[in-house]
């Protein structure tokens, strides 16, 4: 931004004007009091012009060298960082004093130079030159003061503009610490200059007039001429005196006016700002440029406004937060109350449950001991059963052995019976064949008639024999069948017996296994019973603890209820407070 463009030049411009006014005053004074030899006026003018020009140039360049950052910002060669702005600010703040000093210096040097150079002109003596120098030196302070004051106004403007580009109150205070309280010194200086310069001029003028009068008196020996000189002396001296005095007065009064304004402006601005704040318009605090003590006031005021703004913003935020927090608190305290009521209800239930727990624990302990007794009884009977099963198994084994013996016997018997059967079959076959033979013999005998009768009888006898044999074999066969049946029955019985013993031994095994399981179970049961008893004890202990804890909870719940009530009233107060706070804060229009 080029709002700072050319400010470096603009700010020092008044010093030039002040200088020129000084030169004018000097010229007037010189015109009235100094002797410029005729013929040397042009030289004097040239010398004066050159010196003035050179002094201005040099002075200007010196002053500009003190405004590098400001120039750079104006031209855009420097970036508008806060550091640069602050640097420019500091440069600008120092310019009035710089201007004063440089003005003084250049006036002194310039006056000397003019006097010196003029003295060097042919026909001009040192006294004229020294007189010129004196005049310049005498005017120097006043002109410097004027330059200072005029530049000061512009400097304040420039500082405002720089500050407006983005410097906070903090930046300003940091850049220009309000610790140079030199107002008194300046005032004294200003008073001195304002007083002494006219005095000097007046003294000088008076002295010169007196000396001129004296010279004129001394020159004339005539009393009448002396009187004439004396009479015209005041008149001759009045006009220059008046003019000089008038001009000096004008300058002094101008300086006073400017100075006074420069003192008064900041105070007015501060007053206005204070009123603004009192009215509640807290806005962005703008910089009120000032120097020395006034700057102290301005800086302090700006800080105060800034703090106030911050505080009010915080208050506003706090107010809002408090309000919302209060609502939350109220709602949570309501919930809390409800929760506390629930808690009380739950607690009474819990205490009922705890009593039941205690009862059931007793019951469990009772049952556990019953179970333990039963488990023991079961264990005893299981072990008894195991012994019986063992005995049974042993007897089964014996039976099996017996069965085996029977089976073996039966097998042998069957073999014998088979043998007998075969023999009997054989006999039967023979008997049958015999019978057949006998039959056929009988038949042939019969056919032979008488001859064969005896034959037939023998045959018949043989037949009877065979038949009895066959009857016997039939009997034997029947017996064999009976034996077979019996042995079959025995075999079947044995098989059944074997099956039975197998079944029996399987059963015995099962029984033993079952009994083992029962024993295990009994053991487990007694372990479990022990565990239950232990747990019951623990539970009792736990129940007691629970009861204690519950009464604690009940107490603390009641406390909580009381606290809740307190909290409700506190919340109400808080609500009221926050409302009041908001009302107070709302009086201030805080720009965001």
């Amino acid at each position, binding site marked *: 931004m080029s709002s700072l463009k050319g400010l470096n030049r603009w700010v020092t411009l008044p010093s030039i004007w002040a200088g020129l006014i000084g030169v004018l005053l000097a010229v007037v004074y010189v015109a009235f009091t100094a002797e410029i030899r005729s013929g040397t006026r042009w030289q004097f003018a040239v010398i004066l012009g050159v010196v003035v020009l050179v002094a201005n140039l040099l002075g200007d360049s010196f002053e500009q060298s003190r405004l590098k950052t400001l120039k750079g910002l104006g031209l855009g060669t420097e970036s508008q960082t806060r550091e640069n702005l602050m640097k420019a600010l500091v440069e600008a703040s120092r310019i009035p004093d710089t201007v004063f000093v440089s003005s003084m210096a250049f006036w002194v040097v310039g006056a000397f130079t003019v006097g010196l150079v003029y003295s060097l002109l042919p026909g001009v003596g040192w006294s004229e030159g020294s007189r010129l120098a004196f005049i310049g030196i005498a005017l120097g302070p006043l002109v410097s003061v004027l330059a200072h004051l005029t530049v000061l106004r512009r400097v304040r403007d420039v500082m405002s503009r720089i500050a407006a580009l983005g410097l906070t109150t903090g930046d300003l205070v940091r850049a220009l610490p309000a610790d140079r309280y030199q107002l008194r010194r300046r005032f004294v200086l200003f008073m001195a200059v304002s007083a002494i310069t006219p005095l000097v001029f007046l003294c000088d003028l008076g002295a010169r007039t007196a000396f001129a009068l004296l010279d004129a008196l001394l020159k004339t020996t005539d009393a009448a001429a002396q009187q004439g000189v004396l009479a015209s002396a005041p008149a001759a001296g009045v006009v220059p005196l008046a003019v000089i005095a008038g001009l000096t007065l004008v300058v002094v009064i101008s300086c006073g006016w400017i100075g006074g304004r420069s003192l008064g402006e900041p105070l007015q601005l501060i007053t206005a700002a204070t009123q603004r704040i009192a009215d509640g318009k807290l806005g962005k605090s703008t910089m009120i440029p000032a120097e020395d003590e006034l700057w102290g006031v301005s800086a302090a005021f700006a800080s105060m406004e800034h703090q106030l703004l911050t505080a009010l913003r915080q208050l506003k935020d706090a107010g809002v937060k408090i309000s919302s927090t209060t609502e939350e608190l109220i709602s949570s305290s309501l919930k809390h109350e409800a929760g506390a009521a629930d808690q009380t209800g739950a607690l009474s239930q819990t205490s009922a449950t705890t009593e039941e727990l205690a009862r059931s624990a007793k019951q469990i302990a009772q049952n556990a001991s019953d179970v333990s007794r039963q488990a023991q009884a079961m264990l005893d009977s299981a072990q008894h059963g195991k012994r019986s099963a063992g005995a049974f198994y042993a007897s089964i084994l014996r039976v099996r052995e017996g069965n085996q013996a029977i089976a073996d016997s039966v097998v042998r018997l069957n073999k014998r019976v088979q043998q007998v059967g075969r023999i009997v079959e054989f006999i039967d076959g023979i008997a049958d064949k015999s019978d*057949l033979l006998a*039959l056929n013999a009988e*038949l042939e005998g*019969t*056919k032979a*008639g008488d001859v064969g009768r005896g034959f037939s009888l023998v045959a*018949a006898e043989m037949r009877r024999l065979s038949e009895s044999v066959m009857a016997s074999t039939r009997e034997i066969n029947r017996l064999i069948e009976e034996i077979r049946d019996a042995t079959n029955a025995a075999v079947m019985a044995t098989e059944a017996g074997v099956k039975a013993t197998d079944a029996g031994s399987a059963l015995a095994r099962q029984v033993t296994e079952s009994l083992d399981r029962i024993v295990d179970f009994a053991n487990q049961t007694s372990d479990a019973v022990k565990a239950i008893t232990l747990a019951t004890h623990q539970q009792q202990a736990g129940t007691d603890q629970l009861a204690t804890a519950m009464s604690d909870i009940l107490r603390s719940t009641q406390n909580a209820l009381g606290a809740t009530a307190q909290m409700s009233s506190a919340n109400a107060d808080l609500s009221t407070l926050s409302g009041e706070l908001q009302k107070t804060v709302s009086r201030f229009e805080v720009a965001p």
Partner: protein
Amino acid sequence: MSDAQRGHLVFACGSSLYAVPAERAAEVVSLPQLTRVPGAPPHLLGVFAHRGEVIPVIDMGVLVGTKGEATSRRAVLVRVPRGSLALTAGRVAGVSTLTGELTTPLGSSGVQAHLRGPAKAPSGEVAIIDPEGMFELLSKGA
């Protein structure tokens, strides 16, 4: 000597007793496994070889119509001039002298026509078989 004097061979077949004239009864044999003849009538149980001769085996019980004696081990070998046959027998009583009706046919046609009786034997009531007649009958029926 007449048939009656010479005696009869009495045997049981099923629940009945039969008698064959002794001179016609050649032998009492023990039956082996019989060979069945295709298309044979039910009373012809089969044939068997006896002394190089093929003998047909008849079950009188089946022929008569009563319970047969198919599983018997014995048969009475009957020889007639035309040929031989064997009659299955359960039990052979032996040669006996019969009394009663010796020539009266038991029926007018069929098998009964060739059975004479009722005769009496020591073992019970018998039906006397006429061997030649029965043979002729069986030859036709085969």
